[in-house]
C-alpha cells in the first residue's frame, strides 16, 4: 500500500529529536512500514484495562483486584450474588464486542494471540486457546446488559459508577470520559486486564499522525512544526492527562500530580509486558491487521456476542472461515 501513498520521510526530524530511543521498539516498527518513519504516535492505550466499580466491589464484599480469568469469573459471581445487576459493563459497538474477544484470548495466551491474530497462523487459528477464548467471552456476555442497541460504552458509565454494573474491560480513554463526566478517582480502580500467567498482557493501541506529502511550502513548514509538537514531552504529558492514555515517550515521569494510579499501572504493565514479550497489537482498534481482515473477524465477534445460540466450536470455525475469506 505504501508505494501508492505518498508520505513524508520523517527520519531526519525523528533523528534530530532523538525520539527513536524513547519509543518502544514494537511501536517504532509499526510507524516505519518500510524502514522509514512516516507517522508519529502521540499516545498509547491498552484496550484490555480492567475498570472496577468501587460500589460494586463493596456490594460483592471484595477488595482484591482479579489477576487471572478465574479470579475475574469468581468476582463476577460474587458481584452477581451481592446484587450487582450486570457484573460486566458494556456498550453495543463493534469495537466493544471485538475488545471482549481480544482481552479473552490475550489473557489466556499472548503467544496464541500473536500466532493466530497477528500472524494468522492457520493451526493457531483453530487451536484450543481460540475455543477457550470464545468460552470465556460467552461467560462475559452472560454478565453483560443485553439492552444496549448500538450505544457506546459511555452510555452505561453512570450505572458502572453506581455499582449497578461491576467491571469494564476498556482502554484508558474511559478514564478521560469518566473524569470529564464529573466522576472521581475514588469511584473506580484501573488495573491491567486478566492474564492467566499472572504477568500483565498489554493490548497496544496507539494514536498516531500520518504525514502526507504536500507541495505548498507553508504546509510543509506546518508539518515540521506539528512533528516537533507531537514528539514534545510537555505536549504528550498535557494530552495524556486529559485523555487518560500514557505517553509514547518512555522517559516521561508519571509519578507527579495529574497522573492517576491507573495510568501508572498502565505504564508499569507496558514495561513488564515488553520485558516478557507479552505486548501485542489490538485487533479491535485496527492495530493488528489491515482493515478488511479486521472487519471480517469483528463480524464474527459481534454476531457471537449478540447471538447466544452460536457455540464456541461454531465460532472457531466461523473465525477461520472469515480469515480465509478475506485474505
Amino acid at each position, binding site marked *: *500500500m505504501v508505494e*501508492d*501513498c505518498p508520505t513524508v520521510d520523517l527520519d531526519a526530524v525523528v533523528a534530530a529529536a532523538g525520539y527513536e530511543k524513547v519509543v518502544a521498539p514494537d511501536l517504532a516498527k509499526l510507524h516505519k512500514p518500510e524502514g522509514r518513519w512516516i507517522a508519529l504516535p502521540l499516545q498509547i492505550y491498552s484496550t484490555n484495562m480492567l475498570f472496577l466499580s468501587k460500589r460494586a466491589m463493596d456490594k460483592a464484599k471484595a477488595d482484591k483486584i482479579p489477576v487471572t480469568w478465574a479470579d475475574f469469573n469468581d468476582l463476577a459471581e460474587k458481584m452477581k450474588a451481592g446484587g450487582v445487576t450486570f457484573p460486566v459493563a458494556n456498550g*453495543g*459497538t*463493534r469495537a466493544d464486542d471485538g475488545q471482549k474477544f481480544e482481552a479473552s484470548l490475550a489473557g489466556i495466551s499472548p503467544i496464541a494471540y500473536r500466532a493466530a491474530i497477528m500472524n494468522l497462523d492457520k493451526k493457531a487459528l483453530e487451536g484450543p486457546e481460540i475455543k477457550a477464548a470464545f468460552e470465556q467471552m460467552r461467560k462475559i456476555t452472560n454478565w453483560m*446488559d*443485553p*439492552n*444496549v*442497541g*448500538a*450505544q457506546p460504552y459511555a452510555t452505561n458509565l453512570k450505572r458502572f459508577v453506581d455499582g449497578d454494573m461491576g467491571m469494564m474491560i476498556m482502554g484508558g480513554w474511559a478514564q478521560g470520559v469518566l473524569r470529564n463526566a464529573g466522576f472521581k478517582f475514588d469511584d473506580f480502580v484501573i488495573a491491567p486486564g486478566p492474564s492467566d500467567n499472572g504477568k500483565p498482557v498489554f493490548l497496544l493501541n496507539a494514536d498516531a499522525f500520518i504525514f502526507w506529502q504536500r507541495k505548498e511550502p507553508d504546509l510543509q513548514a506546518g508539518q515540521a512544526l506539528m512533528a516537533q509538537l507531537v514528539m514534545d514531552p510537555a505536549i504528550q504529558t498535557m494530552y495524556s492527562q486529559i485523555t487518560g492514555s500514557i505517553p509514547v515517550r518512555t522517559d516521561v515521569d508519571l509519578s507527579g500530580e495529574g497522573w492517576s494510579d491507573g495510568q501508572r499501572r498502565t505504564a508499569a504493565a507496558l514495561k513488564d509486558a515488553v520485558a516478557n514479550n507479552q505486548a501485542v497489537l489490538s485487533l479491535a482498534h485496527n492495530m493488528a491487521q*489491515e*482493515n*478488511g481482515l*479486521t*472487519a*471480517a473477524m469483528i*463480524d464474527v465477534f*459481534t*454476531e*457471537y*456476542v*449478540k*447471538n447466544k445460540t452460536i457455540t464456541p466450536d461454531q465460532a472457531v470455525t466461523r473465525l477461520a472461515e472469515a480469515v480465509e*475469506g478475506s485474505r
Partner: protein
Amino acid sequence: MTDVASTATRPGRPAISGVVGRLPEYLMIWVPLLLSAAHLISFSLWTIWISFTPSTLVPVSGWVGLRNYNAVMASRNWHIAFDNLLLFGTAFVLLSLITGLALAILLDQRIRGENVLRTIFLYPLAVSFVVTGTVWSWLLNPGIGIQKLVHDLGWTSFRFDWLVDRDMAIWTIVIAAIWQSSGFAMALFLAGLRSVDADIIKAAQIDGAGPVRTYWRVILPTLWPITITVVVVQLQFAISAFDLVRALTNGGPGIATQLPALVVYDLMFQRGQLGRGAAAAVLMLLILLAVLLPYAAWRYFQRRRATHG
C-alpha cells in the same frame, strides 16, 4: 419546464422581450440542473470504473473484471443486507402508504384544529434521519425507553425489546422510518383528496352511497397517480437508507440489520476496499434503476395516451 415557461409568457408580449425576460428563469433552472446532472453522471461513471479496478485504500487503475462483484455477492453481509432490503422496502412502503392514507382520510373530515394536526404529522419530515435514529434508539432501548417506562408503571412482564432482538430489529427501522415519512404520504394524499370534484362526491351521496362506499369506490380510485408517486419516492428512500440505520442500530445486533448502503460505506471506509465498495454501490444503483425505469416508462405511456388520445 413547460409549466414554468407557460405561466411566464403572457399573451400579447413581443417574442424577443419574452426570451430576454425569461432569461433569469432559464439560468435559474438550467445551470443547477446541468451542474447536478454532470456531477451525478461523472461520479456514477467514476464509481462504475472503480468497481472494475483492484482499488483498495486509494483508487488505482487496472482491470479485474467481475471479481469485486463476485466477492460482494458471495459475502454474508451482502446477503443479509439484500434480504433486509426486501423486507424493509416492502414493509416500509406499504405501511407508510397505509398510515399516510389513513391520516389523510381522517384529516379530510373537516375537523377543528386541522392545521395544527397537519403540522404535527408533517413535522418529523423536518428532522434529519440521524436525529430520528438517535431518538428512536433511546425510545426502543429496552433498558432505557418504552419497555422500562411500562415496567416502572407496574406492568413488569411487558416486553418490547425488538431493538436488541436479532429477528425483530429490522422492524424498529421500519417503525422509525414510518414515523419520519408517513407525514409526507399524508400531505400528498390530502392534496389528492381535496382535489376530488365535490360534485362527484355529492352525486355519489345522492345515489345513496355511505361514506365508506364513497371513499372506496369514488374517491380512492382517483388517487392512483399520487399513490404511485408516493411508492416511488418511498422506495428510493428505502433502497438508499443509510443515516437512519446507522444512528438507530448501526447494522446490529451483530450484523442482523445490515442494509446495502451500510455495506457500501463499510467496504469503502471501514475495510478500505474501494473496489468492492464501488461494486456494491453499482449493485445498489441497479436496484434503484429496477424501480425507477418502470416508473419512467409508465409516466411516458401515460403522457402519450394523454396527448394522442
